[in-house]
């Protein structure tokens, strides 16, 4: 915390520090944003769900762990992992949006609105996602008007489950905006829409970002559950291979390792983001 300048602006000349550039002129905002958009587009357009996980070699039955077989499984696992990631990202989009609505509903001054929202949040938060997914599946099957693919059920299930978590984060973020900001907005005669979009949200959201990121990672850890619905994710891959080749060790361990390969860097990036935001707020 010694130098109050963000990275990149320090190079000898303090006058180059321009904190009030628009967001699209700040590389530290634009570059991560572009990366996110690219990942998003790839997952949405480039990943197909195929439940075809057939191996082209058999492991040596005498060994408990066959390395050749293990490496052979890697591409299959990667395909499953991408489907899991896709479900996570789409589900999280629902969660981040719905969460904000829930947060607004819970903060509402109308009791008829805030109490049911609070009850619903509490209920969804304290029941397991597994049961919720089964419930959603049963609901979709028993309603004729609804027909959803398994991956859509998973997305909606994840979305609703994590929306309740996100709403708590948003609520904390909104509450962390000082009261004076509201009063200033009133004094300036800003309407509710302007107050929210130009005053409250820009200050609340950066505080919330690390928490949202944590929920994204948590959602990614829950997304393999989709295999109970038939979503060909990473656990579906492991179960299929186990069922076809009768080799349980390699696929499950590979699934675990593949998971860590994605979730550890994500967690690390989040911690950096958290530190960075804390850093920006101190100056």
């Amino acid at each position, binding site marked *: 915390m010694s130098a109050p300048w963000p990275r990149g602006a320090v190079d000898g000349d303090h006058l180059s520090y321009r904190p009030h550039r628009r967001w699209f002129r700040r590389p530290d905002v634009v570059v991560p944003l572009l990366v996110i958009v690219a990942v998003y587009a790839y997952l949405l357009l480039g990943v197909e769900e195929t439940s075809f996980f057939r191996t082209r070699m058999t492991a040596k039955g005498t060994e*408990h*762990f066959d390395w050749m077989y293990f490496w052979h499984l890697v591409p299959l696992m990667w395909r499953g992992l991408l489907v899991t990631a896709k479900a996570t990202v789409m589900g999280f989009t629902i969660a981040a949006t719905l969460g904000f609505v829930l947060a607004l509903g819970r903060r509402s001054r109308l009791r008829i609105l805030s109490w049911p929202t609070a009850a619903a949040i509490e*209920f969804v938060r*304290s*029941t*397991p*996602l*597994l*049961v*919720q997914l*089964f*419930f959603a599946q*049963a*609901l979709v*099957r*028993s309603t004729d008007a609804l027909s959803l693919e398994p991956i859509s059920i998973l997305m909606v299930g994840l979305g609703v489950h994590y929306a309740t978590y996100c709403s708590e984060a948003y609520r904390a973020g909104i509450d962390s905006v000082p009261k004076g900001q509201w009063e200033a907005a009133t004094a300036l005669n800003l309407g509710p829409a302007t107050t929210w979009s130009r005053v409250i949200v820009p200050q609340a959201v950066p505080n919330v970002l690390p928490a949202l990121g944590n929920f994204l990672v948590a959602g*990614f*850890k*829950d997304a*393999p*559950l989709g295999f*109970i619905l038939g979503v060909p994710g*990473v*656990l579906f891959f*492991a179960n299929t291979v*186990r069922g076809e080749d009768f080799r*349980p*060790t390699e696929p*499950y*361990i590979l*699934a*675990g390792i593949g*998971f*860590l390969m994605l*979730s*550890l860097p994500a*967690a690390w990036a989040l911690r950096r983001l958290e530190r960075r935001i804390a850093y920006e707020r101190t100056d």
Partner: protein
Amino acid sequence: MDGWLLEPNQYELLRQGTLVTLQILAYSFGLGVVLSLAFGVARLSERRWVRGVALVYVELARGISSIVLLFVIAVAVPILLDVGQASLILLGCVALGINMGGYGAEIVRGSIQAIPRGQSEAAIALNLSPTQRLRHVVLPQALRIILPPMGNLTIEILKGTSLVSLIGVTDIMQAARNIRQQQLFNATAADVTVLFANILVVYFVLAQVINLAFRLGERRLARRYEGAAAELPVAVEHAGAGIGG
């Protein structure tokens, strides 16, 4: 209201399942607390390699998904280590406990760090050994900070116990699926949504009970720190006079 209830014999099955769920919760909570304390303290150790080991454990336990970890431990590890038919409940508890330990260790570390340095320094000045310092000075104060997030974590573990049904333990979730099989077998036109709605309510009630228990614990602790010196643990007096409070 009648349409939202099950038959009595089905509730009996659910009751048995709930007991299994509670049993798994208790075991994995016990293991999780032990691991959290051990690794949470180890992450603040003076020895570098101890810190390293604890960091690796925490990162792995938090990075891997509990469901994947459950399958790895319940399916892959017994074969890899040539253990015969191990108890599935035990393996499930180990997986959930390891997972909880990772999150719990971070809670413990954070709360120990939140204790003012002066407390440790005072304990050193009073010539307490590092173990005494931890046991009688730091941890009792850290407990107040640990409890609220630990309550949330316990609810997360309660939710995690539903996963053991996937490896074949007859917990409440598996009981529900058994009831479903029964319904299919008898060709009763029962609504599955009702069944799972009932399960959701059971989990909700359990979570509220846990929540309440932790709230009560917090209140008791808070009272202990508000000058009620008579309630201080007796053990403190062995450590030296004038500590605590």
